[in-house]
């Protein structure tokens, strides 16, 4: 063995950043200087960069995170899968802090997931790889309904900081109230500026690309008529902008298209379902926005079509290497569409599952210093207190009443549904609410098989079985209902 020379910090860093996150936590026990090296933000950023590039030695080790609920046993699972082979690489433990709670995942960024808790609407940042949490302080504007909320979460490189943007639109008309949280300051501030006069409808997760969060929205353009559009909020510059949806200038047979926002090849993408009632099968048009921010225009990249898949496929996520993942709503299978080979393939995931959600995911150490460990009782208490506090606030403001009334209306009977059906989608309203409380849009209806749709921003899931029964689940409250239509 050669004589050992002690390694300079720079070289030691070069080695350690290549370790998986668990090993790094072992290494923190080696000695004090290693511990401070690994916990340093310079190291954390560098490790993230290496991980995000995949691997320096030519092996693609990019992964995606799959959240799913096993059909049998009703067990929620998080697992990391290799983007290339889709094989499961490891299971992540569902954290104690949120076990049994209902929540939505708003976004995944640099190994952090931003969660919105059901009842309190409290926000949490969670790093599953290091099992650490950060409960965000209470925001200034509170909303009694998750329908009125839209969120975005992203890293802002110039400030080397993480931001959460929160929009509350209690009315369909008028601009939403906006506030912004920054991790470095751990506080909210009210955003002041020119908002957008529309409501987010968020039938899909917001898409983050070109430094901006994108939501789908509704804009009133006449008496009781609305047009769809995309709303962008630039996280660094903090400005809003409207982007028309593809085909907005074409005459449409039914004023409403079920669109899904995504990011394909670093470009904003919009997927439109074209269900072929007669032929059967799956058909989604994929549009991408070219020349973002310059002279932007939509190009139809391709039509993703399959005549053999019988399940209704709902787009979920696009993987960075050019594949789009779909969830089969009838067969509970995960499918991927390869953009290059232009074909669907079935991805075997163990056990029958439902509630698929997929995220790009990079293991990181972000939140190592700011977060509290999942195992700590402090985390539980903090969260429980937040919930209690929230309940008290609601009572004081009489908000609980509205909520209770809403809840009491479940299970809904058919008379309470207003269904607005067309061949390829259906709108669902509860008619005892005002028009702003449109609760689930764009149910895809195919006439024969069971289909389902989820409005993730509001945590609503609805399923249509053979066009006779409509089942709705409000994930944020854990309510389920069925109605004959």
């Amino acid at each position, binding site marked *: 063995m050669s004589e050992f020379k002690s390694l300079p910090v720079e070289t*030691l860093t070069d080695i350690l950043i290549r370790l998986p996150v668990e090993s790094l936590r072992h290494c923190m026990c080696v000695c004090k200087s290693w511990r401070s090296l690994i916990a340093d933000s310079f190291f954390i950023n560098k490790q993230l960069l290496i991980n995000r590039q995949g691997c320096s*030695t030519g092996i693609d080790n990019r992964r995606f995170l799959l959240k799913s609920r096993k059909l049998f046993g009703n067990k929620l699972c998080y697992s990391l899968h290799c983007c290339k082979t889709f094989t499961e690489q490891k299971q992540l433990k569902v954290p104690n802090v949120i076990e049994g709670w209902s929540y939505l995942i708003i976004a995944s960024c640099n190994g952090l997931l931003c969660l919105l808790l059901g009842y309190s609407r409290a926000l949490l940042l969670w790093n599953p790889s290091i099992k650490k949490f950060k409960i965000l302080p209470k925001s200034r504007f509170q909303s009694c309904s998750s329908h009125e909320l839209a969120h975005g979460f992203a890293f802002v490189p110039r400030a080397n900081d993480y931001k959460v943007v929160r929009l509350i639109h209690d009315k369909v008309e008028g601009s939403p109230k906006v506030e912004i949280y920054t991790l470095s300051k751990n506080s909210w501030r009210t955003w002041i500026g020119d908002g957008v006069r529309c409501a987010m409808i968020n039938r899909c997760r917001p898409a983050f690309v070109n430094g901006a969060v994108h939501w789908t929205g509704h804009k009133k353009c006449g008496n009781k008529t609305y047009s769809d559009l995309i709303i962008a909020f630039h996280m660094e510059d903090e400005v809003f902008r409207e982007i028309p949806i593809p085909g907005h200038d074409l005459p449409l047979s039914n004023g409403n298209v079920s669109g899904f926002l995504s990011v394909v090849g670093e470009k904003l993408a919009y997927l439109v379902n074209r269900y072929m009632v007669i032929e059967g099968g799956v058909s989604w048009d994929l549009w991408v926005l070219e020349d973002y921010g310059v002279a932007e225009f939509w190009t139809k990249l391709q039509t993703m079509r399959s005549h053999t898949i019988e399940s209704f496929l709902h787009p979920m996520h696009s993987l960075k290497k050019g594949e789009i993942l779909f969830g089969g709503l009838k067969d509970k299978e995960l499918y991927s569409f390869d953009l290059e080979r232009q074909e669907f393939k079935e991805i075997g995931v163990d056990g029958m599952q439902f509630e698929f959600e997929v995220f790009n995911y990079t293991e990181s150490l972000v939140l190592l210093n700011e977060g509290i460990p999942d195992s700590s009782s402090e985390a539980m208490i903090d969260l429980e207190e937040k919930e209690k506090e929230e309940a008290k606030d609601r009572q004081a403001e009489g908000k609980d009443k509205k909520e209770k009334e809403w809840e009491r209306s479940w299970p809904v009977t058919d008379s309470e549904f207003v269904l607005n059906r067309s061949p390829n989608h259906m709108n669902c309203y509860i008619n005892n609410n005002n028009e702003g409380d449109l609760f689930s849009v764009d149910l895809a209806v195919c006439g024969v098989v069971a289909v389902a749709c989820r409005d993730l921003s509001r945590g609503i899931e609805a399923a249509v079985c053979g066009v006779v029964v409509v089942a709705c689940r409000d994930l944020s409250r854990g309510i389920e209902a069925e109605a004959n239509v």
Partner: protein
Amino acid sequence: MASSIENNNEKLTLKSSDGEEFLVEKHVALQSTLLQNMLDSDCSSADVIPLPKIDARTLALVLGYCKKHADASSSKQGELNSFDSEFLKDMDMGALFNLVLAANFMEIKGLLDIAAQKIADTIKDKPHQEVREIFHVENDYTPEEEAAVREENRWAFEGFP
């Protein structure tokens, strides 16, 4: 840069810390950003370039790597990958550390990447006590402190002594 391509046969001499001299073709030396910068800034190739931090054994390995990568055309990436893994295959930790240090000093990114990755792969499943030995690091935690850090990272220790 242009001249270096024209004078492909030009050679330069590198001298290791233990005094051994290596005659290297210029296009091979250009794999090192350090040497490239020296050659660009009027450093005459007739001079002997001393590398006081690198011993002869390590320098021979480094130059072997550089020659393979300089000679292979970019289309042979697969061949280079298998060369890289073969190159490091049976190397002991001491040699790997020397290689990382040399790659860092001579600024050879590809070599730094593969050698650092190899070390990382070797230690990734080892308990921290063993990592300490490999890196010759002294434990400066008191037993109480070490227990506290371990507790903090408890979940990562499942299945470890």
